[in-house]
């Protein structure tokens, strides 16, 4: 038995001996060469770049201002670019990148695109002439100031729709464009696509927008606008705004979103309905829970419409008619004594 095994193992050795030596030798030589070469020809490559590329969504949208995702990754590592610049990736990507870079993700306000014009549909535009040519806003506005009477308003050839790679812009049966804030990644493609500069990026927690860009004076503005809902620059909103967030310039009102408290008051006073309020009618009013209220008057002070009244150390009361549902008081109440109903 032993002998057989020995014999067979001897013959086995003779069979596999040479191959082992030769191929093993090859392996040894290659291994050595590669190992040495990897030292001799070493080039420092930052592994973080690759990690960041993996963390990015790979849409190559260019919202960060770099040449695609790889370029952005390179810029983060080598040029110290802002890690929050990736709009499509949002905070999730920023957090991942931050981890890779060993930094904290900054608080990134999610933004959303808003169209500052209520016109643009086939039934909602007044035409200056019958346009024949390329169906692109950018091309059309160069011919006789664009085919629509209002030279500030939407041309309606859907450059923004075509520019959106996230499917966030839709067109309704009236031919009007709508932006789905959930799908919008604030990449800014539509902003640059619109030759009339009607689209702007606005913090997502804001719901009140002036849906007009017309700088025309009063009677003219109405004549030009296809939906007859232009801003006529009357200044009513500006006067009514509890926080002075609206300014009127060149017959056009604009909201300063750093001041705006999203109360929607302006939308209710606008005579031409040029201010859109997504939350209109859905705003809840404040109500003070009497048990919790300690009567600190903070809410009364903060309320822009002075709808809260009450003496110090007394339970405060909300004037339901005056309350505009801006929720300022809710955030500020130290005892969480204000509820929305």
């Amino acid at each position, binding site marked *: 038995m032993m002998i057989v095994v020995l014999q067979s193992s001897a013959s086995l050795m003779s069979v596999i001996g040479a*191959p082992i030596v030769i191929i093993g030798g*090859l392996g040894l030589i*290659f291994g050595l060469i*590669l190992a040495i*070469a990897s030292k001799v*020809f*070493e080039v420092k490559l930052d592994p973080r770049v690759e990690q960041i590329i993996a963390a990015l969504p790979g849409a190559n949208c260019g919202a960060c201002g770099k040449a695609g995702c790889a370029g952005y990754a390179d810029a983060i590592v080598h040029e110290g670019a802002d890690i929050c610049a990736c709009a499509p990736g949002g905070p999730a990507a920023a957090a991942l990148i931050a981890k890779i870079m060993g930094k904290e993700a900054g608080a990134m306000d999610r933004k959303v695109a808003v169209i500052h014009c209520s016109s643009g549909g086939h039934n909602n535009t007044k035409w200056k002439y019958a346009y024949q040519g390329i169906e692109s806003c950018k091309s059309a506005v160069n011919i006789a100031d664009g085919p629509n009477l209002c030279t500030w308003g939407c041309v309606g050839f859907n450059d923004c729709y075509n520019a959106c790679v996230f499917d966030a812009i839709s067109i309704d049966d009236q031919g009007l464009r709508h932006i789905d804030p959930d799908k919008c990644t604030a990449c800014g493609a539509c902003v640059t696509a619109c030759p009339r500069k009607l689209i702007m990026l606005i913090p997502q927690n804001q719901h009140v927008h002036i849906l007009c860009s017309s700088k025309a004076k009063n009677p003219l503005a109405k004549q030009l606008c296809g939906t007859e809902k232009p801003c006529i620059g009357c200044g009513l909103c500006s006067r009514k705004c509890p926080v002075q967030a609206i300014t009127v310039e060149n017959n056009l009102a604009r909201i300063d979103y750093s001041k705006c408290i999203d109360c929607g008051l302006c939308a209710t006073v606008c005579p031409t309905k040029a201010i859109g309020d997504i939350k209109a009618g859905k705003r809840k009013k404040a109500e003070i829970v009497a048990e919790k209220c300690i009567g600190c008057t903070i809410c009364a002070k903060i309320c822009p419409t002075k709808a809260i009244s009450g003496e110090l150390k007394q339970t405060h009361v909300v004037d339901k008619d005056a309350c505009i549902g801006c929720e300022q008081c809710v955030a500020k109440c130290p005892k969480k004594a204000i509820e929305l109903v």
Partner: protein
Amino acid sequence: MGYIGELFVMAMTAIFIQNFVLSRFLGLCPYLGVSKKLDSAFGMGMAVIFVMTLASAFTFLIYKYLLIPYNMIYLQTIAFILTIAALVQFVEMVIQKNAPALYKSLGVYLPLITTNCAVLGVAILNTKAIRTDGITAYNFLDAVLNGFFSGVGFTFVLLAMAGIRERLEFVDMPKSMRGMPIGLILAGIMALAFYGFMGFKI
């Protein structure tokens, strides 16, 4: 005909008649993957020519002076692929260090080549190929040149394909056809077009 004539036949065969991609089905992954832009196709093509030539040389030497004398032809697969892998990695490192510009335009494609079956394919085919007389096996020079010409053939169709695909960027193609499907159908059309070279008597 002479040796030059023989080489001409070899070149014609490798480039047109028995093209690696269109007729032998070798190297399809990079062919379909890196044929979207002419610039990158050119870089890839050059890298493939370079590696195929080098690999042909090395594997031929190993085959002839190591495997045959020791009667170990069954080890050719493992020996060849090891050689190619090491070679590609080595070349990549050298270029990256010594010619960063070249690396940027060509080196990025190198890792893709290790698993390009065209390289291993040409190495194996070289060991089996017979010269035009029908009897003698390839010598060292034959093998190297065959590697080179095969690479040229690969690059040639890669460039032609990239040219067409660049053009197709500017048309409204059915969405489901974009990308791989159209690449494959184009390859089929090119293969049909290359049938004209069938049966050459040079």
